[in-house]
């Protein structure tokens, strides 16, 4: 059974990897025969060369972006968590905050980022604020929904045991919300990197966003592609890391899944 599962995963990966390989080859061919001028669309080989050549500079800028991203993400997640808990605890508060919460997400980040720079200067503060604004929302909404979807029978049972509100939260609501918490965390993690880059476009002395603006202005598109791939890779690494953490934190998850698929087979 387990063997089969592993093989299935490998073959699934195989399909994904082959498509990427095919796309890369097509891209390389398109650049080689100059279907698109090479200065506009550099070939994969040139991009890799640029990446290798620029590696120290890229890493230097990466660390700045990563610090801003992780700091903003941390604040966003903590605030998102607290907000969800408060809104679940007090229905009135939930009704009051929800409209503002939705409104905050309709404001385009790119539009308010220059304002934030104006108010807070070119330092770390406006960047963290932008990232904070894009990361707390998924956490709050996902957590709040899971808290409120907790099984009322389960809550009744704990109440009958004499459980306090905190104990009900600790034993029922929070563990039940872990799955969607991680889902939200994955969304927020990739938002945080994108948010950091956008914030850096608008000003600053270092960071991947700043570097991107520089190479764009000097028409070094091979370098620009190298940055783009680095940003994607960074998001992927974060997602991968979060997956590993999730499996460590939720060891029971695989049994839940097994049970679900068994039930499906039966019905």
């Amino acid at each position, binding site marked *: 059974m387990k063997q089969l599962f592993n093989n299935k995963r490998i073959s699934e990966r195989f399909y994904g990897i082959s498509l990427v390989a095919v796309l890369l080859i097509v891209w390389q061919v398109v650049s080689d025969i100059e279907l698109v001028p090479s200065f506009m669309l550099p070939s994969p080989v040139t991009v890799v060369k640029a990446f290798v050549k620029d590696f120290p500079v890229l890493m230097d800028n990466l660390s700045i972006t990563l610090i801003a991203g992780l700091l903003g993400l941390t604040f966003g997640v903590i605030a998102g968590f607290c907000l969800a808990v408060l809104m679940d605890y007090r229905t009135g508060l939930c009704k009051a905050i929800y409209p503002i919460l939705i409104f905050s997400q309709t404001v385009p980040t790119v539009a308010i980022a220059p304002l934030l720079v104006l108010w807070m200067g070119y330092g770390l503060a406006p960047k963290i604020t932008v990232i904070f604004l894009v990361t707390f929302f998924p956490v709050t909404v996902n957590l709040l929904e899971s808290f409120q979807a907790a*099984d009322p*029978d*389960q809550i*009744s*049972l*704990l*109440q*009958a*045991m*004499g*459980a306090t509100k905190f*104990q009900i939260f600790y*034993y*029922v609501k929070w*563990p039940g919300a*872990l799955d969607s918490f991680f889902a939200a965390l994955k969304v927020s993690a990739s938002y945080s990197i994108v948010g950091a880059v956008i914030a850096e476009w608008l000003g600053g002395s270092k960071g991947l966003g700043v570097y991107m603006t520089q190479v764009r202005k000097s028409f070094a598109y091979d370098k620009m592609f190298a940055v783009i791939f680095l940003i994607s890779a960074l998001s992927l690494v974060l997602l991968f890391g979060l997956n590993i953490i999730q499996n460590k934190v*939720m*060891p*029971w998850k695989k*049994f*839940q899944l*097994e*049970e679900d698929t068994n039930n499906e087979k039966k019905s």
Partner: protein
Amino acid sequence: MNIYRENKILMDRYQSDKIPILEIKGISKAFDGKPILRDLNLKLFQGEIISLLGTSGSGKTTLFNIVAGILKPDQGVIFLKGEEITGETGHLAYMLQKDLLLPHLTILDNVGLPLRIRGKSKTESRAEALQLIPKFGLTGYEKLYPGQLSGGMAQRAAFLRTYLFHSEVALLDEPFSALDALTKDKVQAWYIEMMQELELSTIFITHDIDEAIRLSDRVVILQPQTQNIQQQIIIDLQLRKQKDFTLRTEFLEYKKQILKYLTV
């Protein structure tokens, strides 16, 4: 044979000289102005099993929630061993239809949950739960997660958790209904045995008339709130112990009587 009259006499004799362990006195409850329970009275004696039968909407689960202290009654009081516990949680063991084991805790931690809720430490709770694991036939399952257990085993774990409430009275809301017929018979027989050994007194809700007659000392029929009548039937213990009880005419008599009360 007039079971009804005989039952009345039995009932009087039954209640006269005993002190109830749990007494439900004059409970009324309405939701949005619609009465669900009206002046309900019920006594549960030491070591007794009562089953509550009633059509949907007769307020069985509402009654349980009130007795367990989760809901407050509009009127009426509840006594446990002579002390009033109206509106207080944590006194009675409560078990619902679903096993409601928490998916993120191992079986050992799940069954020890009532102890944790009362403020005992993790080690203490585990040690205490571990002692009872063999008695409930859960040896080898301690470290597993609920997702790895069959329905019958999960229900056993839920019973052990209920027992670890450390209450002498258990409220069971359709505890057997989620099990398949074969598992059900086994778990029921096992429960009766455990109950006697642990000296638990039980009220349980069921939809199954056969199950009610087979398992309980007394069957209480809750009729829709408007009629405000309760009927009780005492099931003869000697008869119940007979192996062919369910095939006897007396069994059918009980069943007829209950059906009559239910359809009034």
